[in-house]
């Protein structure tokens, strides 16, 4: 135990030394760039080694009954935009706080950039956080807020000012730099909180639902900006959200959490199109889950009718796929044909509700005693009306079987 702590501490010292080293390099590059192109200096100053993250058996409980993390194993690659996705209370924020060092795991190890940081306090970790409430210091100006982390690490003032100017240019803060915090709008605060974390050039940047307090337009604008920043800096980003759309837009990979357990880790397409279980499917917005009552190879008897699924899907290493007791029909994969048409994976139904959304329309279709949601693109052709008899056609390769 003692040995581990010592190694952790020397690890910190190393990282501090390397931090100072890269800082002075950045300064050199910056002063050269004053003569040369300014853009080039920014690139130089902000490029740094990204760090990978390993979590092994992380446990965390609050009080007697609340399990926040239940033995989590997770690997995040260097330079990845990684999202922790789940409903409130799923453990995603706890995981982020353990990464930041603001919370200590009861059990398990955490490694960042090859160094064990399980017991390293936050002020000795090269990790910075963008807080949900932004957490900008009210007694300081924007400029002083940006310089806070550098000042605490003892960077000389001249160098500090240069770094702050660089980041302000990079995030396009412009004339906000001399404002007081209470003179800023939500979106401006968000960008300053991001700049304040980035200017420290951490190995890992943590983002705790940073966009959740913003309105939709600003939100998508900042999503694009965040992506741009991450791609240019090549930094490892760990992003927490409960919004599956946001997770899919932003992430290289997503971990879906529930009840302190990881449900699935994968690229956005995997998680959306091949959910590992019913929880992930429902959380990603899928409602068309139907119970399988009997199966023969790829032939399924389900509560919605007879379906054929592709055999190859069964071999995809996903163990649940073979034994899954549910079949998922994604609403945007199906076709609607007017009237009654016979065929494999053809389901007869009647439209009970239609929501016209311009670019597409959403239908509720009764098939026997169950309901199916369908999304159909509005290609200018005839859209079925409420009460119409239709045949729902699904492709075998779009069907996914999964377990509860």
């Amino acid at each position, binding site marked *: 135990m003692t040995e581990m702590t010592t190694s952790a501490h020397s690890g910190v010292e190393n990282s501090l030394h390397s931090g100072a080293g890269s800082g002075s390099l950045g300064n050199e590059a910056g002063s050269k760039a004053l003569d040369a192109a300014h853009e080039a200096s920014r690139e130089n100053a902000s490029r740094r080694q990204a760090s990978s993250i390993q979590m092994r058996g992380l446990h965390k409980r609050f009080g007697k009954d609340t399990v926040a993390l239940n033995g989590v194993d997770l690997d995040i690659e260097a330079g990845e935009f990684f999202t922790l996705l789940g409903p409130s209370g799923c453990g995603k924020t706890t995981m982020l706080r353990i990464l930041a*060092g*603001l919370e200590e795991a009861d059990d398990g190890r955490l490694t960042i950039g090859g160094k064990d940081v399980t017991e390293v*306090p936050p*002020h*000795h970790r090269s990790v910075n956080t963008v807080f949900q409430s932004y*957490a900008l210091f009210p*007694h300081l100006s924007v400029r002083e807020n940006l310089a*806070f982390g550098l000042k605490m*690490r003892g960077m000389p003032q001249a160098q500090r000012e240069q770094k702050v100017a660089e980041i302000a240019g990079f995030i396009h803060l412009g004339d906000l730099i001399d404002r007081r915090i209470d003179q800023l709008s939500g979106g401006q605060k968000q960008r300053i909180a991001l700049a304040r974390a980035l200017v420290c050039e951490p190995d890992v940047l943590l983002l705790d639902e940073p966009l959740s307090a913003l309105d939709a337009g600003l939100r998508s604008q900042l999503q694009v900006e965040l992506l741009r920043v991450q791609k240019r800096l090549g930094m490892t980003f760990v992003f927490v959200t409960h919004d599956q759309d946001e997770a899919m837009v932003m992430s290289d990979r997503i971990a879906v959490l529930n009840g302190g357990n990881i449900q699935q880790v994968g690229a956005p397409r995997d998680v959306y199109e091949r959910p590992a279980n019913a929880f992930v499917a429902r959380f990603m917005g899928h409602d068309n889950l139907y119970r399988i009552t009997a199966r023969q190879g790829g032939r399924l008897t389900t509560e919605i009718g007879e379906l054929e699924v592709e055999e190859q899907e069964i071999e995809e290493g996903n163990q649940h796929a073979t034994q899954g007791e549910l079949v998922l029909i994604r609403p945007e994969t199906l076709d609607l044909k007017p009237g009654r048409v016979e065929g494999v994976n053809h389901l007869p139904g009647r439209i009970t509700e239609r929501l016209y959304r311009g670019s597409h329309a959403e239908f509720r279709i009764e098939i026997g005693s169950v309901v199916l949601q369908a999304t159909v693109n509005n290609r200018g052709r005839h859209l079925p009306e409420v009460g119409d008899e239709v045949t729902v056609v699904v492709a075998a390769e779009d069907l996914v079987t999964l377990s509860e």
Partner: protein
Amino acid sequence: MNKRNFKRGLKGFWWLTIVFLYLPLAVVMLFSFNAANSAAHFTGFSLRWYIKLFGNQEIISAIGNTLVLAIVSSVIALVIGCLIGYGMYRHRHRKLGWLIILIYLPIVLPDIVFGISEMAFFVQIHQLTGFLKPGLGTMIIAHVTFEIPFVALIVYSRFVGLDPSLFEAAKDLYATPFKRVMHFMLPTIKPALISAFFLSFTLSVDDFVISFFTSGPESATLPIYIWSAIKKGISPEINAIATLMIGGVALAAVMSLLLNRRRAT
């Protein structure tokens, strides 16, 4: 009574309140400049009572005692109360209701009860150990004691008004515990500290009851001096002292206001 009359009545009531609050003060201030030795007839403007006052060694030493007592006790109360206020904030999620009530108690306790108990306590200790002889020392202890809850509550409410993630942001941005205090906590609660200091100062200057019971023969403060002087009858000299005190307290209030406003703009 119709609505308009009711409004007129409220307005009249407001002015009546102001009159009762400030007219006596105005009268005292006016008569402190009276040329004649009279509390009934104003015969002409004069500074003779002020000149007489500053020639009186007893009054000078009372002013000195009052200032030393107010400044020293406020500074000590500020440090201790600040720590208590932070402690209350840090542990606000624990079940510490009874501790908070302990902090509140001196505020609601009648001064006379507080003063008598302090006196009995100091006398006992003095008889047993020879320490804590009634005087400026015991008065400072007593004043610190009743100022602490005010400081603690002001500091506590400032901390409660802060976004809790600010504390985490400071940690996250590499601030060691010491730097967190110097660069985040103290600057952030500075307005509260200024208000708390001036409130303590004013309470101390204002206090008569507790001072009276804990003072010694050499440590009369202005309120104590006034009380003993007034037994011989109200003299214009007393009016002059009262005017000086009003001026001093008003100055402290304005200074605290200005210091806080400078930060806000």
